[in-house]
């Protein structure tokens, strides 16, 4: 089981800020692909990924219990 967090525009696209998914041992790119298929309203363009609060590459593996967050272009400051 993994937790997936959404923020800002993506949170509004989905109408939710969090998903629990029964997956593990998949790469970031694979998770993105699955989510886009499951949620056609979701765009993950220009979006970075964090695993357990650290930025992750597209090929990084996601493990059971990980918290994955999608980070659309930031605009703080």
């Amino acid at each position, binding site marked *: 089981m993994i937790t997936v967090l959404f923020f800002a525009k993506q949170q509004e696209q989905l109408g939710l800020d969090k998903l629990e998914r029964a997956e593990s041992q998949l790469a970031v790119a694979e998770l993105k692909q699955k989510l886009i298929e499951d949620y056609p309203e979701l765009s993950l363009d220009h979006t970075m990924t964090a695993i357990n609060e650290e930025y992750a590459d*597209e090929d990084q593996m996601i493990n059971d219990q990980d918290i994955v967050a999608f980070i659309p272009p930031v605009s703080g400051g």
Partner: protein
Amino acid sequence: MEMYKITSDEIDVNQVITSVIRPEAGAINTFIGTVREFTGNKQTVSLQYEAYPSMAEKQLKRIGIEIREKWPNVQTSIVHRIGKLAISDMAVVIAVASPHRAESYEASRYAIERIKEIVPIWKKEYWTDGEEWIGDQLENTSYKNRVPKEEKE
């Protein structure tokens, strides 16, 4: 004592400044980002900031570490407010203390540029004629596959 904080309260500038004052410091540069009413012709009514707070605080700390690697005698504090802000409200306060003034300016500038690159905070603008989540899509076409690395000189 350095502070790296995401808060939904009004930011106390004095507290941020006081947190970096030390006897070794002769210069404190403070940068305050406030809500601007006009951007070109567009009139902002209010702003909403949202964050991934736990990760955002880690990223703010990371900026402090990067700064100390570049400017060893510098102390940094950064506080970013989230929630709904009105015109002229302070969204971010950065305070940098250093023995001499040049580094305080350089490190402060570095901090604000890095905040805009790596800290998971998002701004939604409410204009007189609409609303939009801000995020510079155009300038980030290669963003998708890029993990932010520490900047090289």
